[in-house]
């Protein structure tokens, strides 16, 4: 809780209020009855100019549907920040808001300390963006498309060919983009995002539509950019991808940012084990004790005629063997793999 003393704008009366950072509270001035809203500021460090991307209390509604619900986070200089969440969670919407592609309902976004609401044109100079749905000018060739973006970013055209080469499009420079496959367009999109070596990259599912070699290529490039000091903000719903490249992760679900953490801390939490439910004709103490003794078993719960066992996937057959040895007769066995949802639940501590 922070305590804050504010002054009523109409009667200048002083009053003291309490709240958490980011809270919005309604105020009715006790002396003149005028109404107002006060938003408690986030810690100074949050809006520090050294964070290349700052998102504060961002909300976006589509008609009445809340796609992004009051989320705040920042991406620190030089890190790779992963945005993780299921389909429709609001990842793309958040990224679009950062690039001023959509109007937001409330919130503040800053790029290198520059408000995108006040000066989008300057803020965009620092960002290379790979949209989720990538498309180009079909009548123009790959090189002509890239020249256009290079011109718009006021970057020498000489960069374009090497970038296309690097993305494996060296043989398709003069091919019309209308004839490109989805994966080729994705590679071209990555090349375009890299024009002018922007200090910030915003990549919406960079490995979408790519073959394994393409995926490896893009991951290599992302790491290479990081080593040059580039700040990367990328989204994905592939856990392994996020785990492999990101320094920190934000998890978004149904428009709400449910966790922000370093990958090492998060992956500890992510090491969830499958849950095996064994239904028995009858439960006896011997069976439960026998199961508990099996190597790799973490947790055993008895619910009616069911035993819920959380264990290493490898121990599954040993568990069943132990149950049968102890005289239990099995009716049914179910295995539930840890889902993204469980990750969320665990991460949010629900």
């Amino acid at each position: 809780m922070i305590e804050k003393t504010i002054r009523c704008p109409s009667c200048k009366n002083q009053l003291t209020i309490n709240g958490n950072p980011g809270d919005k509270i309604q105020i009715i001035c006790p002396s003149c009855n005028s109404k107002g809203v006060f938003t408690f500021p986030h810690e100074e460090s949050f809006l520090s100019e050294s964070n290349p991307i700052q998102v504060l209390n961002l909300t976006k509604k589509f008609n009445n549907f809340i796609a992004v619900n009051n989320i705040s986070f920042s991406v620190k200089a030089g890190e790779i920040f992963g945005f993780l969440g299921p389909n429709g969670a609001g990842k793309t919407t958040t990224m679009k808001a950062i690039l001023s592609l959509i109007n937001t309902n409330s919130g503040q976004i800053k790029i290198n300390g520059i408000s995108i609401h006040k000066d989008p044109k300057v803020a965009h100079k620092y960002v290379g963006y790979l949209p989720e749905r990538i498309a180009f000018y079909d009548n123009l060739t790959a090189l002509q498309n890239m020249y256009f973006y290079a011109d718009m970013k006021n970057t020498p055209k000489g960069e374009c060919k090497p970038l296309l080469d690097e993305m494996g499009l060296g043989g398709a420079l003069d091919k019309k983009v209308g004839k490109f496959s989805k994966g080729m367009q994705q590679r071209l999109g990555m090349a375009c995002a890299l024009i002018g070596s922007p200090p910030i990259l915003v990549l919406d599912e960079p490995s979408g539509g790519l073959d394994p070699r393409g995926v490896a290529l893009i991951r290599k490039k992302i790491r290479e950019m990081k080593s040059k000091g580039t700040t990367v903000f990328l989204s994905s719903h592939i856990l392994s991808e996020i785990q492999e490249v990101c320094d920190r992760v934000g998890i978004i679900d149904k428009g709400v940012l449910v966790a922000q953490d370093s990958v090492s801390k998060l992956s500890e939490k992510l090491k969830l084990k499958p849950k095996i439910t064994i239904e028995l004709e009858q439960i006896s103490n011997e069976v439960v004790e026998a199961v508990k003794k099996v190597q790799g078993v973490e947790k055993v719960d008895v619910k009616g005629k069911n035993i819920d066992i959380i264990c290493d996937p490898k121990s599954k057959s040993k568990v069943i063997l132990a149950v049968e040895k102890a005289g239990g007769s099995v009716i049914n066995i179910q295995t539930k793999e840890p889902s993204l949802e469980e990750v969320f639940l665990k991460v949010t501590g629900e």
Partner: protein
Amino acid sequence: MNTTFEKILKNPVSIIARKEIMDNVRNFWIILITIIFAILTVAMSAFGAYFSEGWQDLGMTIALMMSIVQLLVPIIALMLGYAAIVGEIEKGSMNTLVSLPVKRIEIILGKFLGLGIVLTFSIVVGFGIAGIIIGIMVPDVNYIEYLIFIAATVLVGLVYLNVALFFSTLFKKRSTALGGAIFLWFFFNMILPVILMGIAFAGAAFSDILEGTVPEWYYGIQLINPMSVYSALVTLNVEGVLSSASGAVQIQYPSFYTTWLMVLILFVWIVGFLLLSYQRFNKKDI
């Protein structure tokens, strides 16, 4: 190189305009319509020039050409403009475009400039060839009047281009926008004239018109239709168009029908719809 010139070339508006030109000069339909346009104007001018014995009679040629303009110029303009914004949004290339260091007004202006140049080019090519034929076949051609005619045509083309541009910011889908463009063509060519005719009936102007006198207020109301403004602009400035208008109706423009009023009205259409497009596009989620 001149630095001001370099600055202009490096401005996002002109970069987008150049891209727009490159993208559209390869558009099959635009090329086809331009060719049809050129063939028709050449046919008309050859036909007109054949029967004329001097520039005076070329008013008739221009009167004939005006009917092609009324039919084809809106089609070229609507085809160039109807998908300008919605097409890029639907396809996805607008995602990248808006994310670049560029203001949305610059995107609208760039599109307008680029498409306007393509439109102007196809009009100038069509009438340019026709002009050459006229020059060969007719002595003492008044080129100034001919240039005024071309300029007026470009202006009215830009009006339709911007109406189309505005329509392309209204819809969510390219296909709906195409329907909208077709409706617009019908509206300006069929529905609006019929409405104006209806007004004439209702206002009892029709009997007057049949008797050969058109009341001033009816002339005033005609200015709603950009095509009427265009024909007035041409008629006021090209000698002989007026007299070649066939039929019993003697066109007698009221005194407020001036060149400057007509030019002003067309400019208001152009700028007005440009602003409307920007205002709509600015609010749009990509």
